[in-house]
């Protein structure tokens, strides 16, 4: 019998050793989904028939000695913002309800080419706008640690699926923290690669200069394995970096040996203190201490413009989003709604009625905000200024990386909050991404690694590790070293401390 709590690395080893089959692993995860997803709601669609067929094909390849990759046969869940041929893709929005794309995103193509069966599509804030997955048009995902709390967002579905053992691996996307913040609040690992490191072809754009797909996993090594599958140059994405990926799996394995001698770790002064929960800061300090004990050299760095990153982001993102979401015009795909009581309505009237019915509150807020920031008379004061501050944030990173090999902060200022708590308070919701946004503005890679449970509420917190652009290997090296040190402290994975979701059913 296989254990669904196994890491993807362990599942791959078991497949290679002939101890199990992809069909057995996939069925076990489908059973788990059937048992717990009614409560968690991590999935928008589960492709039972498709995924079992893909698992059978993986087993047949393995029997012939023709496996496609180390992860061939290890199933995965994909965030519903990436197009999947033949499988509905909604982006968590009514405007795309029932849309079945005629093409695969490059990330999905690479998963298929590496033999990973696709379990289904995971829930998300509508068009990835949010930090709680409550802005999904199809209802929120719940945090497996406490079903009354949010799983983070926008990729709460992917993080919850992995945290609840419904999938060993998942794909997320991170525009301002949507991989890392859900990782922090669900006790899982999430990586935002360097901008351009993973293709955006087939990733439905929110803010195209910020969006980046990446791994959502339970361990750092699993993330490195998955990153190597999905990453690398894609001629179909003009912003794709035309260089080979660094050796990510090698870095994760070296890091797991636990030696950080000679690594300079920089704690960002501006990302901590006021506004951060006590227990989150306590776990962060412990992580820093463990890294120092492992040989790292601690330096304090200051990034003075990071205090403006959130405001910068909430001008750049809505501006890009208002432009990107103009494609949902009721003409070529998606919802078409005719205005009530209008005879022979014009295309524009149909467009307005469709977007009224198809978009949720947060999407409307951001489109209108972006329209404002880009309108004549305000462009220079808002969007133009934001682009300049973006330069200043990038310069802060340059300065900081002159003194430190990696930068550290808590991933999110708080642990998971209660469903509904910030739903109608946009500013309070935006503050969740305070620490993750600077990396998106500057394109640098970052990982969130679980740092432990906050004393005051017993909920998971995360440490964020950032590296210079193209040095994604560093986040794996340092992340794996921290993970190893924490595992030794805890005596087992942090998810062992999460409540069982299917009481009465043996684990």
């Amino acid at each position, binding site marked *: 019998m296989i254990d669904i709590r196994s890491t993807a690395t362990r599942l791959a080893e078991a497949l290679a050793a002939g101890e199990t089959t992809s069909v057995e692993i996939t069925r076990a995860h489908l059973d788990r989904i059937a048992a717990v997803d009614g409560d968690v709601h991590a999935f928008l669609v589960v492709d039972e028939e498709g995924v079992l067929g893909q698992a059978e094909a993986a087993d047949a390849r393995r029997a012939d000695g023709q496996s496609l990759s180390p992860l061939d046969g290890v199933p995965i869940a994909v965030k519903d913002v990436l197009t999947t041929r033949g499988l509905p893709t909604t982006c968590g929005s009514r405007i795309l309800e029932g849309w079945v794309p*005629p093409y695969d995103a490059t990330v999905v193509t690479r998963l298929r080419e590496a033999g990973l069966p696709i379990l289904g599509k995971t829930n998300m804030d509508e068009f990835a706008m949010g930090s709680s997955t409550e802005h999904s048009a199809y209802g929120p995902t719940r945090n497996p640690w406490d079903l009354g709390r949010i799983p983070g967002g926008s990729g709460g579905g992917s993080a919850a699926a992995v945290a609840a053992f419904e999938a060993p691996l998942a794909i997320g996307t991170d525009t301002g923290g949507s991989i890392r913040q859900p990782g922090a609040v669900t006790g899982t690992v999430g990586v935002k690669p360097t901008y351009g490191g993973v293709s955006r072809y087939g990733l439905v754009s929110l803010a195209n200069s910020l969006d980046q797909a990446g791994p959502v996993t339970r361990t750092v090594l699993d993330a490195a394995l998955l990153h190597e599958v999905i990453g690398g140059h894609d001629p179909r994405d003009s912003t794709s970096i035309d260089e080979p990926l660094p050796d990510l799996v090698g870095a994760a394995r070296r890091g797991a040996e636990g030696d950080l001698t000679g690594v300079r770790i920089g704690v960002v002064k501006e990302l901590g203190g006021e506004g951060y929960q006590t227990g989150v800061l306590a776990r962060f300090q412990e992580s820093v201490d463990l890294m120092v004990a492992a040989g790292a050299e601690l330096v304090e760095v200051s990034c003075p413009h990071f205090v403006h990153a959130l405001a910068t982001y909430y001008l750049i993102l809505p501006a890009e989003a*208002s432009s990107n979401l103009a494609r949902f015009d009721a003409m070529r795909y*998606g919802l078409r709604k005719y205005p009530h009581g209008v005879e022979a309505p*014009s295309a524009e009237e149909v467009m307005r009625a469709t977007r009224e019915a198809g978009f949720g509150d947060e999407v409307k807020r951001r489109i209108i905000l972006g329209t404002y920031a880009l309108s004549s008379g305000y462009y220079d004061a808002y969007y133009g*200024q934001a682009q300049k*501050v973006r330069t200043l944030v990038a310069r802060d990173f340059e300065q900081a990386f002159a003194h430190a090999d990696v930068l550290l902060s808590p991933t999110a200022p708080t642990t998971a909050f209660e469903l509904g708590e910030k739903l109608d308070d946009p500013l309070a919701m935006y503050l969740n991404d305070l620490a993750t946004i600077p990396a998106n503005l500057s394109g640098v890679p970052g990982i969130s690694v679980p740092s432990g449970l906050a004393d005051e509420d017993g909920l998971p917190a995360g440490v964020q590790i950032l590296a210079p*652009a193209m040095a994604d290997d560093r986040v794996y090296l340092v992340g794996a070293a921290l993970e190893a040190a924490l595992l030794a402290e805890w005596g087992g994975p942090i998810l062992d401390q999460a409540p069982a979701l299917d009481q009465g059913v043996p684990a």
Partner: protein
Amino acid sequence: MPESSSSTGPLISRDEVAHLATLARIDLTDAELDHLAPQLSVILESVASITDVADDDIPPTSHALPLTNVFRADVVTPGLTAEEALSGAPEQEDQRFKVPRILGDDQ
């Protein structure tokens, strides 16, 4: 986000929000306008804090990493068939997207 000074009135009025919604091709109900306009004012007030941060000589950044235009070889590669391209269309006719009228009788 730094605190910004308290403003005397909303940065963006209900009428302005209605106008922006028209520009963005979104119908908003009266209830939505009542709800969204004050929220947008609060957000705008907060993001307005960056207007004085950067000096005039700071260059803008549009993309995180420097970009150059990308070309590909001028060779035919497989694309979507007409059926695939039309597969999500709300309405279609004769292998074309069928859309509502673009112009009125007097245009």
